[in-house]
């Protein structure tokens, strides 16, 4: 398992290598990329903030759960922080599994849970202003663990 919050550029090869296994028939990789717009507004760049120690802890919990639910062989989750330009990768997830279906389902579930539960925040910077996104992914208590709901 590899989980990492870092200011450095995320490298797909590193995530793929981290989940390699002779038993793996499938590897799925997801890249969350900085788009040039959001809700029809032009974005200049993004800034990500994180609570790194807790983010990595929550990532580890989510990965452990994903491996069990989807029979994954291994997972890597990397999130970048700091200023990110259009086209740069903010989130990198790799999963390996015996067969392809689990790799797609497990990867998709991981992204969704990470966006809901991991303490990371993005600020959009436009030509004429900026704003922290308080995303539709997490509305108040929705991000809390099941035991608190």
């Amino acid at each position, binding site marked *: 398992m590899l989980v990492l919050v870092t200011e450095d550029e995320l490298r797909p090869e590193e995530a793929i290598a981290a989940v390699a296994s002779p038993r793996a028939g499938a590897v799925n990789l997801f890249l969350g990329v900085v788009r040039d717009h959001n809700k029809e507004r032009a974005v200049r760049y993004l800034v990500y903030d994180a609570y790194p120690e807790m983010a990595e802890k929550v990532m580890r919990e989510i990965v452990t759960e994903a491996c069990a639910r989807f029979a994954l062989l291994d997972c890597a989750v990397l999130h970048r922080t700091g200023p990110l330009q259009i086209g740069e990768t903010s989130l990198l997830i790799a999963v390996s599994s015996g067969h392809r279906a689990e790799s797609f389902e497990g990867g998709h579930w991981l992204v969704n849970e990470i966006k809901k539960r991991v303490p990371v925040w993005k600020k959009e910077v436009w030509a004429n202003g900026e704003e*922290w996104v308080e995303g539709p992914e997490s509305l108040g208590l929705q*991000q809390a663990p099941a035991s608190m709901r």
Partner: protein
Amino acid sequence: MTVTVRLFASVADAAGCRRLDLPLTEGETVAQVRARLLERYPQLGRFVPVLLYALDEEYVADTAVVPDGATLALIPPVSGG
């Protein structure tokens, strides 16, 4: 006794500060620490309806008791990915 408070994103911008220590009384809850934080930073009041709290990197309810030396994080709605 002290508690370290950590602030992020919009909350840190509003406070102009990402980390501070507050004195702590035995048996105080997250809600009580938050009340004293708001005395110092009243501009954080508008975040209260959407905040979650973590004690030592674990989400907790605001009724949780804060141990001496703990780190209390104020977690606005997350938007990673």
